[in-house]
């Protein structure tokens, strides 16, 4: 199993550009999450999903969109990149019904200039 895979690992965007951060998991987990981590800070929840076709806002959803068309994939879209979105983005997944923690991908480091 590869676990949770995020692409790309690094990206530089110009202000106003858009991009999609990809996240896929091969563990058949139903719950998936997107977090951002600013330097020296904790993780803030952006969006999460409890299954295909179901998404919900987290703590800091503004400026982002998500979709969940399959169990495996949970892409995060930035439509109009702003410097405030410079951060490290982590995707995570877990299985509910079983008392397990969330497993994290390796992260995407995004810089908006």
């Amino acid at each position, binding site marked *: 199993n590869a676990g949770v895979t995020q692409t790309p690992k690094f990206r530089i965007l110009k202000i106003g550009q858009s991009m999609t951060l990809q996240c896929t998991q091969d563990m058949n987990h139903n*719950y998936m999450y997107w977090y951002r981590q600013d330097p020296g*800070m*904790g*993780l803030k929840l952006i969006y999460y999903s409890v299954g295909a076709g179901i998404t919900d806002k987290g703590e800091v959803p503004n400026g982002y969109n998500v979709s969940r068309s399959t169990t495996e994939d949970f892409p995060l879209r930035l439509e109009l990149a702003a410097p405030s979105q410079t951060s490290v983005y982590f995707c995570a997944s877990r299985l509910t019904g079983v008392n397990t923690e*969330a497993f994290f*991908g*390796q992260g995407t480091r995004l810089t908006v200039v």
Partner: protein
Amino acid sequence: ELKVEQNPLFLSMQEGKNYTIYCNYSTTSDRLYWYRQDPGKSLESLFVLLSNGAVKQEGRLMASLDTKARLSTLHITAAVHDLSATYFCAVDMSMNRDDKIIFGKGTRLHILP
């Protein structure tokens, strides 16, 4: 809105010493997770605490959960340099019919040789 507060946020300690990191949270929950993050890396699961009075130990680290006090602790015994990292607690909101996992800001632990 759930608040998760860790303290201290930064801790510098000598090898061989004992210390405790505290995680307080503001709403009812009976599930809490501890993660470790090394610089530039992703998050690694350390402990899953699933009920009041739960205690888990792994090597020099021991975690406990008091759901009535809304408090979890991570105790370090006879610290060694390899334990230098940032430690996060994360609160599972499922007891509140919510699917979020909310993180604290993290405790940056620096162990001096």
